[in-house]
């Protein structure tokens, strides 16, 4: 019996030597405000994956920055296994410019590969001293508005388009009036940061501006971090439905041998656990159960989509944000 046990031990050791533990490294290239979200997602997914794959180790690294800049970095060679960016267009360029992902990448996962949504709200200082209630208050003289640069920030593009869409939807609204409205709004913007996190710093840490056009989740984080006695959230009459997109960067993942884990990682975002984490980080979940659980943070709001108002991201990008587009004309100083 003793001999048998010894043999078993030797065999187990031999097996361990023959099949050494594997360490897999994933890189998730994301946009500015998702740091906290993916910190939690990663911890939960690693725990789940390592439990399913005993003896193996998974490391997930995060990279954050302005969404457009992040997409450019991946095109320029940043070895992302997955991207989780602020908007569909920034993911799409990975196909149109670099062929790193297939054309139908957004069909690989549910909800056009957008596992959670968000919207744009106003973060104002406690007491709302400038009485900002809706988009039209942002163009009043003396109201200082903080929003990032739409040329580099996905969040900023949502802000811009939300304002444009609001103006179009006003009685007698048309493209010219919308252009004029957005132009007036940007005249009230004293600082254009490269990304949403930079704008949060400008508004929250540096105390600049009266209203911050913010991702809904970013607004809640600011309040949680600095206290309800300092800021409050204002929901405008209408806003835009922001659908941050995720995708497997097929070419990189294939080369790095991480396809299976990376795909599993993205699918995890759609699980109840993933949705619960998203909701807890103030992203509007697709899951009805998670939404119901956190409904106090997500008041009902009239939301319009990019497709409805601008005919999709590609068209909106070309008209408004490409070099020489509407934004360049509006912001030329």
């Amino acid at each position, binding site marked *: 019996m003793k001999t048998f046990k010894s043999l078993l031990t030797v065999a187990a050791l031999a097996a361990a030597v023959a099949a050494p533990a594997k360490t897999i490294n994933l890189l998730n290239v994301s946009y500015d405000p998702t740091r906290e979200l993916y910190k939690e997602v990663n911890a939960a997914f690693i725990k789940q994956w390592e439990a399913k794959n005993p003896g193996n180790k998974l490391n997930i690294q995060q990279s954050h920055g302005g969404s457009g800049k992040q997409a450019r970095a991946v095109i320029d060679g940043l070895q992302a296994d997955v991207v989780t960016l602020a908007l569909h267009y920034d993911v799409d360029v990975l196909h149109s410019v670099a062929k790193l992902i297939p054309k139908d990448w957004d069909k690989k996962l549910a909800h056009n590969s957008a596992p959670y949504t968000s919207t744009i709200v106003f973060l104002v200082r406690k007491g709302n001293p400038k009485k900002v209630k809706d988009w039209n208050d942002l163009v009043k003289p003396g109201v*200082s508005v903080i929003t990032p640069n739409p040329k580099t920030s996905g969040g900023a593009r949502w802000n811009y388009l939300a304002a444009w869409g609001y103006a179009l939807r006003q009685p007698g609204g048309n493209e010219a009036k919308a252009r004029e409205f957005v132009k007036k709004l940007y005249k009230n913007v*004293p*600082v254009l*940061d490269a990304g949403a996190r*930079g704008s949060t710093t*400008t508004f929250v840490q*540096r*105390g*600049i*501006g009266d209203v911050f056009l913010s991702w809904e989740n970013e607004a809640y984080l600011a309040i949680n971090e600095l206290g309800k006695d300092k800021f409050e959230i204002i929901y405008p009459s209408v806003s835009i439905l922001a659908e941050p997109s995720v995708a497997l960067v097929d070419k990189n993942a294939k080369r790095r041998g991480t396809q299976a884990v990376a795909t599993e990682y993205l699918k995890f975002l759609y699980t109840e656990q993933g949705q619960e984490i998203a909701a807890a980080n103030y992203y509007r979940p697709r899951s009805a159960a998670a939404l119901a659980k956190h409904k106090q943070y997500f008041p009902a709001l009239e939301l319009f989509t990019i497709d409805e108002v601008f005919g999709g991201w590609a068209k909106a990008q070309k008209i408004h944000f490409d070099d020489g587009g509407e934004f360049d004309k509006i912001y030329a100083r």
Partner: protein
Amino acid sequence: MKTNTVKKHLKWVGLGVLVAGATGALAQTEDSLQARLDELDQKIRVIERLNELAAEEAKAAAAKSPKVSADDRGLGLSSADGSFALKYRGFTQFSTAHLFGKSGTSSTTASPNVTTSVEPTLNDNYTIRRLQSDITGTAYKNFEWRTHIDFAGGSASLLDVNLDWKIQPELNLRVGKFKPPTGLERLISSPRAPFIEGSFVTLLQPNRDIGAQLFGAFGKGIVEYQAGIFNGARDGQNNTGDNNNEKDFYGRLFSHPFVGKGEWLEGLGLGISGSTGKQAQYNNVATTATVVTATSGSANTPGTGNPAVITTTAAVSNGIASYSTGRQGFFSYAANDTSVGTVSRYSPQAYYYAGPLGIIAEYTATTQNIRRAAFEQEITNSAWALTASWFITGEKNSYKGIKVKKANTFPKIDGLGGLEVLGRVHGLKIDDKAFAPLNTADLRVTYADAAKQASEVLGYGLALGWYVNNTVKIFASYEQVDFAGGTGTSATATAAPIVTDRESEKVLSLSFNVAY
């Protein structure tokens, strides 16, 4: 009475109105001032934030800009991500040697068949020993190239010209001309060479060769390897081309068994290298030798006659390596000897670096068959060396390079620089068979004449290296080399040679080195 009371009340009312009016105006002014202050405060904050963003942008832009560097490691240009780079380095060494006690004359031929040799004449000298230009480059991150040229002596000599493909740490490819994997002292960079002259071990190892080599490291240097195929070069020599299809194979394994185990253990390195190859080009028989025809029998026929006897070793080249202390040649084969068959070498080697201490120890043996006409013998020559050094100024000793703690950069003097004390013992032994008569009928017939060629050398010396800073090094050494044999009266057909030891070579060397 009533009138007075009314007047009194009116006064108070008037005063109250005035005070209220003044207070209201004051409050209005305060609000206005506060608003003005808030506005100014915002303007200042905006300016500060814009400056902050501008600084961030400048930093980000700088990170993307090509980098230019000029420091004690050379001049460099590189792209922001380091994928493309160009680096220029140089090494200049001026040296002088003063020899003590040498006053002999040149070798003399006394008669056709009997030679008496005396001590060689050696001169003090000043030498531009090295004038090296080293240009390295990186392309697409994983490709590196090097062009290393020495202009000392007035002409350009290509030392290293190679291309590396860095596939991964465990597997890399190098092609071109470079040092094949041999011994520690041979592979050390010129500025880090312990003494001006290499130890005797390097005499038995080829210098540079042309070929291809795979190399890499596992486990952060726990195991390093090199394996290559080369044209083939003689002991201590450079290969400049090939005239045959035979190639030499080299291999080297080196281990740092205690990587990550602390300063006192991780500096231990142990290794072994070896090579084997059959080189027809070694068999070039010299045309300048004077051959004295045998006095009896048929020349060059073993057992039936007497192989030719060579009467001079001057200005001959038989394609086999000869050995020198750097000041005087002490061994060479006779001019019509040739190397045949396989030449093989092996070199066990070790170093130990811990704090200011550094020790290098290695051994090399070269085995080759030497032929005189139809007589052929396997000859194994061997050498060893032990070099130790200590930085009395506390610098961390290293095989790869030294970083001076407190550099002396005239006119600014932060410190003395680095002072290194060195000691070396090394020896080389020629196989006894090289001096044994090939034909008992004529004792003159040997591969080497013991009255002219030393059979063994032993060198020992001390040195002081002053690293003035990371660029300039001044070096002084005193070394003595003792010889076994090397002078005397050559053998006659029937009488063995009368062999005496050459006078010991005592040399004081100085060098001034600039490496950047």
